[in-house]
């Protein structure tokens, strides 16, 4: 039951993009098309879940060595290596996805959402399973938000938007409205 609550809360209630405002850069940058948004979501999901898993062990190692104060830098090291790894794998496995993601794939390195989930896991004192579930849930929440947003933006592209709002301004307003909508999930858990 607890695992289900963690999953639900990380996907909807504490949605990383909509409630915690982490990972806004790829959220705005790769949300022009549903296809690329989904690709980005997949990449982030992969990185976040793996990062949660590995940072759990890294944290235990840090505790054992009594150097927890190096948490941030150690996590950044893990995440950066992981992103590099994912980039190589995607380039090999799916060149089209690699092309579509372009510069945003390396940007996952500096994506605060990934570091955020790692640190939040430690702060929440989650066990191994809970950590992975929370990481995956947060990433699924990110994917959900970015795909929904991309869907809206695709429709915005062909709708009659006042000239002053065309392009980015209307996207930002839409993101704000979506965030308000997600606030409605607060009573859920």
């Amino acid at each position: 039951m607890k695992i289900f609550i963690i999953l639900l809360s990380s996907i909807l209630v504490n949605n990383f993009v909509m409630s915690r405002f982490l990972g806004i850069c790829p959220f705005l940058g790769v949300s022009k098309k549903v296809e690329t948004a989904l690709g980005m979501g997949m990449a982030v999901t992969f990185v976040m879940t793996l990062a949660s898993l590995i940072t759990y062990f890294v944290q235990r190692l840090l505790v054992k060595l009594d150097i927890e104060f190096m948490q941030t830098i150690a996590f950044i090291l893990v995440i950066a290596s992981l992103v590099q790894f994912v980039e190589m794998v995607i380039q090999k496995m799916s060149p089209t996805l690699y092309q579509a993601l372009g510069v945003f794939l390396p940007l996952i390195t500096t994506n605060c959402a990934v570091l955020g989930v790692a640190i939040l896991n430690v702060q929440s004192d989650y066990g191994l399973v809970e950590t992975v579930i929370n990481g995956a849930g947060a990433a699924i929440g990110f994917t959900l938000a970015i795909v929904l947003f991309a869907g809206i933006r695709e429709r915005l592209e062909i709708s009659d938007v006042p000239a002053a709002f065309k392009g980015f301004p209307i996207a930002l307003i839409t993101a704000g409205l979506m965030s308000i909508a997600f606030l409605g999930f607060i009573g859920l858990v």
Partner: protein
Amino acid sequence: MNDILKTVVGLGSMGLFFGVVLAYASKKFAVETDPKIEAINNALPGANCGGCGLPGCAALAQAIANGEAAVNACPVGGAETASAIALIMGVQADAAEKRVAHVICRGDCNSALQKADYQGIHDCKAAVLANNGQKACSFGCLGFGTCKNVCDFDAISIVDGIAVIDKEKCVACGKCLEQCPKSIIKWVPYKQEVIVECNSHEFGKDVKDKCKVGCIGCGICQKVCPFDAVHVIDKLAVIDYVKCKQCHICVVKCPTGAISGNLEKTEKVRIAQEKKNAAVEKSNG
């Protein structure tokens, strides 16, 4: 001291571990890139101007290597680049039809009437906001040089209140076409000399009131053209550049001079026409 040692050793070994894993992965997942792409990229001018319609030269290089773009897709590089790339790709370069941007308006200060004295920001876009520009003709070049300011190749100059593009310098990057608020800069084949330099779709009388060199849609050019290349569409003469053989007859016959042409050739055609007319008159008389 112990803390520092532990930190250094701990993080250092972690870094080493991830480094080794990445090094292994980079071997394992190495992607063979096409050597052609790099070669083509080197052959391209590297201006990243976007004239080909792709984000940059690297993107074009990839597109060419994949066969998605023609070897002469780079408008800036011209024939030399095209042939160099053709050599890399191992195909014959077609002689690409070079095109240039051309300002389709002759209404300079002497010919076109001004309806107002514009005192605002020296920019065509700003002038258009103020009652559609200062010129009486709403289709004409305003001459504030918005196109000139975006041209990276110094090909555009403002002469007598209208923009003129030096076709030798023009590399067909298309930046000026996007910027012109009147959309009167258009693509024209490099070799084309006979061009209708007017955009006005107004009635002949209105055009005449506003501009001395505007197209009044009289249809004389359509009648005299031996190749069926000129047609008056919506009160404006339009030349089909594919059919046009550049005989210059329409240039000579145009009553307002809205059609431009090579001066020497125009003169030759004029003399020939006069001779012909005289011969016809003689036989009639």
